């Protein structure tokens, strides 16, 4: 690598600490070559990921090839994309052409997607490099990234602890400085929970803002793809790239047409303060969280007050029904979505010859993990004859009530604040004996999914033992800019982008 001569050794070793936008700038300015940077990224992954287990598969050759093309583009003065040379990891339930999309399940361990998800197309069009596929809870069903056919993801801050889930690989890979940006998916907190546990920023956009085409469905009416990163600039840049109407997803937004694209900006702190955002504190929920979480969140609230934000207490009434409603909808939709995995058209190597149809499907489908099986069974139950009104329809009514409640709150406030998770990260293997123990962890995050509103988790601090704590901010639908503004404020005051685990 003769080109290394251009750079000092120190400069090269610290590249992995830089944010995506910073590296991209260096590549554009020809301070470094995309090719050498990507080689370093893969080197970092092979050094670090044995401790974290965040990657399921890597896209080594193709990413290097693409990096060379980018270097050539720069030399030839061609038009350059906004994510030039930035390596991005993709949760393994998002389809990338030619790569395995396993959803961390044995059922899909040999499945290679023949097409790109819309978000992947959009990233590649802006010259981002797809670096690999990230570990997760099987089909997104979990809050700890322990339920993976490929083993649990370890928390970069303390490897005995869970990384959170289900997008645990996406959060841990970013947190452990393997890659600057990743995509996750969030059905009931799957981006925000691991962002909180690993101390990175993660946003679940408004339902319909980002195309779901190519995202393997768990619960279609609740989930969204969103970016995870260490800096708010990287979040905004990535969101700008992947958001907007997509004609291949009928549920993608019609709120903006193509010529009226969403574009999020990074405002200055003074600019943010000048907007006089009204902040609502969801008091009843904050008070129900673990003491260290509660204290940390109140510290953040004090910081807001100190800088002149209009902060007032408020509450959410239906949150007790919300959790039940969420799991009714999620399991019902999941039981139907996962029906297609019958190992006939694709799946793992197995020949159906000699099997009778019914027994073949039951036999092969037993390769789902226990948590997935349970949710399929529960979902089948709530949809079975005679129960539709009692469960599914009732859940939709709760969902309506929650949406109405948020509509009222957003007449009073621009932004709502609560913790991302009610507890601190826990040890691998510690929870899971009782399904409800895990369900209860989602109590703060599912609200945004039920209401379809955007929600972001940002690093808020640490427990006495050094485990990360996240702050959750919510705004009304299609008001992602407010979340970015509030995050900009905290990033500027706390410098949380400099909180890096020792790994």
């Amino acid at each position: 690598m003769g080109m290394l001569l251009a750079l000092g050794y120190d400069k090269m070793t610290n590249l992995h600490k830089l944010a995506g936008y910073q590296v991209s700038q260096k590549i554009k300015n020809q301070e470094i070559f995309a090719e050498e940077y990507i080689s370093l990224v893969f080197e970092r992954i092979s050094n670090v990921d044995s401790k974290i287990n965040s990657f399921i598969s890597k896209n080594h050759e193709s990413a290097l090839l693409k990096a060379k093309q980018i270097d050539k583009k720069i030399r030839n003065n061609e038009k350059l994309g906004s994510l030039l040379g930035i390596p991005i990891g993709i949760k393994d339930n998002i389809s990338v052409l030619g790569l395995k999309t396993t959803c961390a399940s044995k059922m899909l361990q040999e499945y290679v997607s023949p097409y790109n998800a819309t978000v992947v197309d959009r990233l590649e069009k802006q010259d981002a490099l797809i670096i690999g596929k990230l570990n997760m809870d099987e089909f997104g069903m979990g809050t700890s990234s322990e339920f993976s056919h490929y083993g649990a993801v370890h928390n970069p801050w303390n490897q005995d602890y869970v990384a959170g889930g289900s997008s645990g690989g996406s959060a841990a890979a970013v947190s452990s400085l393997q890659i600057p940006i990743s995509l996750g998916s969030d059905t009931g907190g799957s981006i925000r929970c691991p962002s909180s546990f690993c101390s990175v920023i993660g946003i679940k956009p408004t339902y319909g803002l980002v195309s779901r085409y190519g995202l393997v469905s768990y619960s279609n009416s609740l989930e969204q793809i969103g970016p995870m990163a260490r800096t708010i600039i990287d979040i905004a840049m990535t969101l700008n790239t992947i958001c907007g109407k997509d004609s291949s997803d009928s549920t993608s937004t019609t709120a903006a047409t193509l010529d009226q694209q969403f574009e999020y900006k990074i405002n200055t702190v003074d600019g943010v303060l000048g907007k006089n955002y009204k902040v609502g504190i969801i008091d009843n929920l904050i008070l129900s969280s673990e003491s260290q979480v509660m204290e940390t969140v109140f510290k953040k609230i004090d910081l807001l007050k100190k800088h002149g934000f209009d902060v007032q207490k408020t509450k959410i009434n239906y949150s007790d029904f919300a959790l039940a409603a969420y799991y009714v909808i999620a399991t019902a939709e999941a039981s139907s979505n996962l029906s297609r995995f019958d190992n006939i058209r694709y799946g793992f190597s197995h020949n159906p010859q000699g099997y009778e149809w019914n027994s073949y499907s039951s036999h092969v489908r037993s390769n789902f993990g226990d948590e997935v099986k349970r949710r399929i069974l529960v979902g089948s139950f709530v949809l079975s004859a005679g129960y539709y009104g009692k469960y599914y329809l009732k859940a939709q009514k709760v969902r309506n009530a929650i949406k109405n409640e948020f509509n009222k709150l957003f007449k009073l406030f621009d932004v709502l604040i609560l913790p991302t998770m009610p507890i601190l990260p826990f040890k691998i293997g510690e929870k899971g004996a009782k399904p409800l123990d895990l369900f209860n962890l989602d109590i703060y995050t599912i609200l945004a999914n039920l209401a379809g509103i955007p929600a972001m988790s940002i690093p808020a601090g640490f427990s006495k033992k050094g485990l990360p704590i996240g702050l959750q901010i919510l705004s009304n639908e299609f008001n992602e800019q407010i979340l970015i503004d509030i995050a900009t404020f905290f990033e500027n005051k706390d410098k949380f982008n400099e909180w890096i685990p020792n790994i």
Partner: protein
Amino acid sequence: MTRTESKTQQLGISLKNDDDDGNVDENIKIGLEIHSQLTRLDTKLFCGCFSNYRDIKPNENTCPICLGLPGSLPLLNKKAVEYASMMCISLNCNIPEKITFYRKNYFYPDLPKNFQITQYNSYELSSIGYDGLISYFNDKVESDREEKTKGKTVRIKRIQLEEDPGKIIYEENNSKINNYCLIDYNRAGVALVEIVTEPDFRNANDVRLFLNKITNIFEYLGVSDPNLEGAVRCDVNVSVKGGKKVEIKNISSFKDVEKSIIYEITRQKTLSMHQISVKSETRHWDEKRKITIPARTKEEEDEYKYFPEPDIPRIVLGSGYREKIKNNMPELPIERLKRYVDIHKLSNHVSDILINNKKVSDFYEESLKIYNSPKEISNWIVNELLSKTNDLEKNEPTDNKSNKQRGFISHVTPQQIADIAKLVEEKSINRNIAKDIFGKSIKTGESPLKLIENVEIRKIRDSETIRKYIGEVLSDEKHLIEQSSTNPNVANFILGKIMKKTGGRADPQLTLKLIRESIERK
């Protein structure tokens, strides 16, 4: 197991306790579930693959969407909604302002997602059409219009839009000895409209009339070609008073629909006569043996776990949708009938024959464009062309309706019909000669105008030659001279003979004059 027990089991029945009143003839109820593919669409219901999957190599008409690959999402075809709406309007159904799609969940290897995207009205009014009513007639009373408008009616419960599954194929005919099945997903996702009627039919003949009527309507609408293999399928439910409803599936042709109904009525009546109650079940039509057999009843058959399809938003049609579609809809057979009678001044009988087959009716319309004489043109089509086609059919009996139409269309053009009509009307050609020329025209494909020119050029106007022909006729049939004094038609009869001998070339006026002269002279 006793013989009776095994028999009752085979028939899918259980012993009945209470008495039957016996009078079941007027208490037969038959309902239909008709599945019609929207074959005139270019693409499938939810993706860009071809709607015409026929003659494509297995699984080459597929994409991530119709294969239900992980992450793919359905994209509803706008035209499918329009076509289904046209069907609803033609069957006098209501169309709601908003429609919704539901998932019907069941496992089967021909279903790529193991659920079917369809519509479902139990939780809300979601289907594209509901509460329709359509009348159909019995052709035995066709000549009397009064009688016809009274007609018979059937209520349409609902019309829904859904996707067709793929196809399962066996290498061995007997599925039991197959170790595996072969699946072709080319058909998977093709747009299908399901029409569910109320059980308003009383006999198999009415069902046939109704099926002919609605498939004819679909052809007029240009939404479906019922002649394509598998384009229109029909499930039947039959109940005889005192018994439960029995569904018959797996019927592959309209002829078998009739046969299966007749079989099932007989079966159920026989059970009733023996005081055996008919239980609610699904039976399959055994095409080879022409009987219905109990389908393997699966407990989970009722467990379709319906819920709203989350990947397709509720579709807002709006209040003006029905009118908009209606205004752009092709003319329906009933509208054409009215036009033929009221404006073209055709008889009900002739109009009815014309509209009962869209290809015939279109042929008539095309001919009119060339020569605008409804009476003459319809006469040639109905009395000459169709009767000739029917004769053809008698000689080559076939089940296939489409052959008949193909024969009709490929042999004759509207130009030929228009020309012949024009000849008769404008050149006052003898009808017999015209028929002759028409016959030749059909055989050779040559224009009647050309043929008549030939006749004109080669016309025999030479008296000597004609007298020679007259002499030949009279010497062959001497009795004609005797008859001529009493029977005034003899002259015409002789003319006919001469025309035949000369291939219509003899000048009719001159010949007739000469015939009279020779008869009188004798």
